[in-house]
C-alpha cells in the first residue's frame, strides 16, 4: 500500500478554490440577513449559524478527500454506491417527515438527507463503470447497464418523494455517456420514448416530433428493419399513451399532474412564484440593500433560506450580484469541465464531468424555478442555500474535484 503523498499545493486549481470561496461567502451574507428575523434568543437556531457551523466539517471532509489516493477512490466506488442505496432506503423504515421519507433522524439536533450523498456516489459508480467498460460503448445495449445503475437510486428517491433530487441524479448520465464515446444517436434513442409519450397529447407537437424523429433516424442510418422498428415503435407508444392516461382515475391523473406541475395548486405554488418574482423584480439593478428586502423580511417569500434564496439576493443585492453569482458558478463549472478534458485517466475525467453536470443541474433547476421558467421543484442552489447535508455533499464534490483534477501519479 502506498501511503498518503505530499500534496502538490502549487498544482491546486486556485480558480476553482476562489470561486467556491466567493459563492460560500455570498451565501453566508444572505443567510445572515435572513437570520435577523430570529432576533429573540436562540442564536444557534438561525440558518446563518447552522450553515456557518456546518462549513467546518464540510471543508474538513473536502480537505481529507485530497489525501485519498485516486485508486482507493476508484476501488471503493461500488461499495459506496451500495451504501448510498441502503442509505436512501433507510428513511422508509421510520416515520414520515412532513409526509415524506427524505430525512433520516439519528436523534441529533439535525436530520440527514441521504439522497444528497447517494447522488455523488451514484455519479462515481457511473464513472467507474463507464471507464472500465469504455470499449463497448459503440453498442446500444451497453448503455443499458449504466442507465440502470443511475435509475435504481433515482426511483427510490422519486418515491420519497423528491422529484428535484431524482432529476439531478439522472442528469449526469447523459454527459457522461456522451463523454465516454456513446453515439449521440443512442442518447437520442433513450430520450425518444419520453418525448413520444409527452408530445402525444398535442397534435402539432406530435407531428413535429414525428418529423424530427424521422430525420434523425434517416441521417444516422441504421439498417432498414431497425430504423422502421424505432420509428413506428415510438409512434405506436405515443398513440397508446393517451389511452393509458384515460384509463387512470381522475384522482390518479390529478396526483400525477400535481407531481409534475405543483402550480396546479394555485394557493400554493403560484403564490410562491408571484412572491419570488416580485422580490426579484423589485430589487432592480443594485437591490434594496442588505437586510432591507421587504418581501423577504415581511415573510412573503417562502422557503427563503433554501429554495428561494436567489430571490433574496435578487431583492437585496440586485441584478449586479445575481449576474455575478451566475457568472462565477458558470466559470466554476467551466473550470471543472476543463480539468475533465485535460485529465489523463478516464475515471477522473468522467467523475469530473458528472460533478459538473450535477452542479449545473442544481443551478439551472433552482434558478429557473425562482424566476418562474419551470414548475416549482424544491432544489437548493449550490454553496448558497442553507442545508447541512447539501453543504457537506457539495463540499465532498469540491474535494473530489480538487483531488481528481490534479494529474500526478498515484
Amino acid at each position: 500500500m502506498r501511503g498518503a503523498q505530499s500534496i502538490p499545493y502549487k498544482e491546486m486549481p486556485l480558480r476553482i478554490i476562489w470561486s467556491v470561496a466567493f459563492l460560500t461567502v455570498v451565501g453566508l451574507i444572505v443567510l445572515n440577513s435572513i437570520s435577523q428575523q430570529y432576533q429573540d434568543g436562540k442564536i444557534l437556531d438561525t440558518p446563518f449559524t447552522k450553515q456557518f457551523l456546518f462549513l467546518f466539517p464540510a471543508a474538513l471532509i473536502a480537505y481529507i478527500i485530497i489525501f485519498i489516493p485516486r485508486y482507493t477512490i476508484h476501488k471503493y466506488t461500488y461499495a459506496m454506491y451500495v451504501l448510498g442505496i441502503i442509505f436512501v432506503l433507510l428513511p422508509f423504515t421510520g416515520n414520515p417527515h412532513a409526509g415524506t421519507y427524505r430525512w433520516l433522524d439519528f436523534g441529533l439536533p439535525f436530520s440527514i438527507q441521504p439522497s444528497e450523498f447517494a447522488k455523488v456516489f451514484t455519479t462515481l459508480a457511473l464513472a467507474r463503470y463507464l471507464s472500465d467498460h469504455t470499449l463497448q460503448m459503440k453498442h446500444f445495449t451497453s448503455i443499458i447497464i449504466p442507465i440502470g445503475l443511475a435509475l435504481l437510486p433515482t426511483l427510490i428517491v422519486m418515491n420519497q418523494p423528491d422529484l428535484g433530487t431524482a432529476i439531478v441524479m439522472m442528469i449526469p448520465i447523459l454527459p457522461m455517456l456522451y463523454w465516454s464515446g456513446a453515439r449521440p444517436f443512442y442518447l437520442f434513442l433513450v430520450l425518444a420514448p419520453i418525448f413520444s409519450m409527452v408530445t402525444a397529447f398535442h397534435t402539432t407537437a406530435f407531428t413535429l416530433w414525428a418529423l424530427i424523429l424521422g430525420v434523425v433516424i434517416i441521417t444516422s442510418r441504421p439498417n432498414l428493419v431497425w430504423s422502421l422498428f424505432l420509428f413506428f415503435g415510438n409512434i405506436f407508444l405515443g398513440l397508446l399513451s393517451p389511452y393509458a392516461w384515460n384509463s387512470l382515475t381522475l384522482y390518479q391523473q390529478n396526483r400525477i399532474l400535481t407531481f409534475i406541475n405543483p402550480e396546479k395548486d394555485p394557493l400554493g405554488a403560484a403564490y410562491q412564484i408571484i412572491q419570488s418574482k416580485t422580490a426579484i423584480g423589485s430589487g432592480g439593478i443594485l437591490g434594496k440593500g442588505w437586510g432591507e428586502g421587504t418581501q423577504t423580511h415581511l415573510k412573503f417569500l417562502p422557503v427563503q433560506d433554501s429554495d428561494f434564496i436567489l430571490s433574496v439576493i435578487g431583492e437585496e443585492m440586485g441584478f449586479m450580484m445575481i449576474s455575478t453569482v451566475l457568472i462565477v458558478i458558470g466559470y466554476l463549472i467551466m473550470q471543472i469541465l476543463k480539468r475533465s478534458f485535460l485529465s489523463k485517466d478516464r475515471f477522473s475525467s468522467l467523475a469530473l464531468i458528472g460533478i459538473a453536470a450535477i452542479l449545473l443541474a442544481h443551478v439551472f433547476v433552482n434558478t429557473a424555478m425562482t424566476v418562474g421558467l419551470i414548475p416549482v421543484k424544491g432544489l437548493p442552489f449550490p454553496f448558497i442555500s442553507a442545508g447541512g447535508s447539501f453543504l457537506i455533499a457539495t463540499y465532498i464534490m469540491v474535494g473530489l474535484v480538487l483531488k481528481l483534477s490534479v494529474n500526478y501519479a498515484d
Partner: protein
Amino acid sequence: MMLKADNIASSRQYYFAVGITWVLITVLILRFFQIQILGYAQYSQKANTNRIRKVTTSAPRGLILDRNGQILVDNLPTYILKAVPGELSQKGKTFGLISDIIGLDSNTVLKNYKKYYRGRFIQTRLAKDLTFHQVSKLEENRLNLEGIYYQQFPERYFPSDVKASHILGYVKEVDRSIRESSTNSNEYELGDIIGWTGLEKRYEHYLRGQRGVQFYQVDAFGREVGYVADFLPRDPEPGQNIITTIDIDIQKKLEYLMEKRRGVIIVGIPDTGEILGAVSAPDYSPDLFTGMILEDDWNSVLYHPEKPLVNRFSQGLYPPGSIVKMITGAVMLDNPDFDPHFEQKCEGVYQFGDRIFACWYQNGHGSVNLTSAILNSCDIYFYKNIHYYKLDKLAQYFRLFGFGQPTGVDIVGELIGTVPTTSYMNNRYGRFGWSKGALLNFCIGQGEILVTPMQVFNYVNLLATRGQTFKPHFVNVDQILETIAPTFNKSTWDRLIFDMGQVITHKNGTGKSALPLIPGMKVYGKTGTAENPHGEDHAWFVGWMNYNEKKYSIVVLLENAGSGGGVAAPVAREVFTDIVKVNQLVAK
C-alpha cells in the same frame, strides 16, 4: 489497472459541454434582466403597494344534536387577541393596557407572546376566549393599541343542561406534535381544532369544516388594507352537523340518578341498537376542556381518586356476576338430554373435588329447577349442572353473546375484556395450575371473566330481540352493522325470556323492585351481585321493558354498592318510569 484507461474526450466534446453550460447560464441571466431591469417599475410598485398576505380562517365545527334536534354541542364565537411584534412600539405599556382591559394577568400575556412568537412580522397570539364585550372595550382604546389585532374563533360550547362528557368527548388544539404525527401534515394547521375523544374524534371527518383562505393586500408596514383581486378568497366551510341517538331528557335523568354514585347506566332501544342515554359516573363538565384550563382544575380531575376521566361504559372492566346466568342456561338448554324442569337440591354449599362452593343464600334454596334458579339466582343449581360441560363450550357461548370482543360502539378506545378459555387459563396459570373449579366460577360470572357495561348492553339487546339487534351506537350516519348473535331454537329463547320475566314478577324474584307501578308495562331482567377485589360487591341490573309495543333495554352497574336486587333494580325502576313519562310528553 483500469485507472490507466486514457481520457479520450475530444476537444469537440469539451467545447460542446462548455457551450451548453454558458447557453443555460445566459438564458438565466437574460431572464433576470427581463424581470429586474425591464420589469423593475412594475414589480417594485407591486412590492410596495400590492403585497399579498395569506390568512387562513378556521371553520366552525358541525353541531352535535340529540335525537329530537336539540343542541348538545354548539359553537360559541370567541375572539383571539394577536400582536404583530414588528408593530409594537412600547411592548410593556401595551401589554399592561391589555391586561387592565381584559382582566388578565400581564405576565400571562407576556408568556403567551413568548410562547407563540415566530417572527417579527407574524401575528402572535396574546390571549384567547375574549368575549365580544372585551373586544369592544379594546376597540375603544384602538389608538393606544398599535400592532394589536383580534380574530374571531369558534369554540365548543354546551348549551344543554346534560353533561354527556364521556359520549361527546372533547376537542384539542393542534400543536406541533399532533401535526407531525398526522399522516398528512397539510390537513391541519397549528391552532386548528381536532376531535380528541368520544364522538368528536369518531366523527371528526363529518364535524370538521374546511378552513377558509383569504389573500389580503398589506401596506409597507404589514397592515392589511384590502383583498387581492387575483386570488379569490375561499370562505370557510362549516362542518356537518351530526344527529345522535341520545334523548336529552333521558340522559338528564340518568345523570341525575348517578350523582354522588359510581358506576354506569346505559339505556337504549334493543331493536336498533340505538343508545338513548349513557352515563359513566363520576363524570366531569364537558367545558373543562374548552378555553384556558386552570392547572388546579386540571390536576383535580386528572388525579381524582375516582378517575372521572375514565369512560366506564366502554373502558371499565367488571366481573359480571349472576347477570350472565342466561348464557349458562343456554348452554344447558342446547343439550337435548337436559330437562329444565328437573330439580336439583340446593343446601347452601356444594363440594366439588376438594373445594367448597357456597350459594349466595347460605341457608339453601331447597329444590330448584332452571326457572327458579334464575329467578332467585341460585348458584348451586348451576354448579351441579355445568360440570358436565367443557370450559371452552361455555366460552364459545359467551363469545356468541359478544363478550371478549369489541361491540363496535362508535366511541374510540373500547376494551374487550376477558373470556377465559382453556388456552387462556394454561397461559395464565400453567397447564396444571388451575382446576375445573374455574368453570364453576365462570358459569356464575365470577373468576377470570371480565366485561364492559357496553358488552352487557349488547347482551341484553340480544336477549330482548332474540338475536335480531344491531351494534350499539350513538350516531346513525355510517351504516350500522348487525351484531354477532347466537341462533337458538325458539324454545330456548322462550325459556330464557320467560325466566327473566319471572325474576321480576315471581314473589321470590330478585328483581322485583325493578317493576314500576304502571299498568301494561312488562319488565324482564336479571340481577347480579358481583364479588370483586376492590371492596363491597358491584350491583348489576340488566333487562328491558315492554310498553305500548315499544322495547327499552337497560344496564345498571353501581360500583361497590351492594346487592343487585336491593340497589340496582330500584334505579332501573326509576328509569323505566321516566322513559314512560318522557314518551308521553313527546306523544302530546
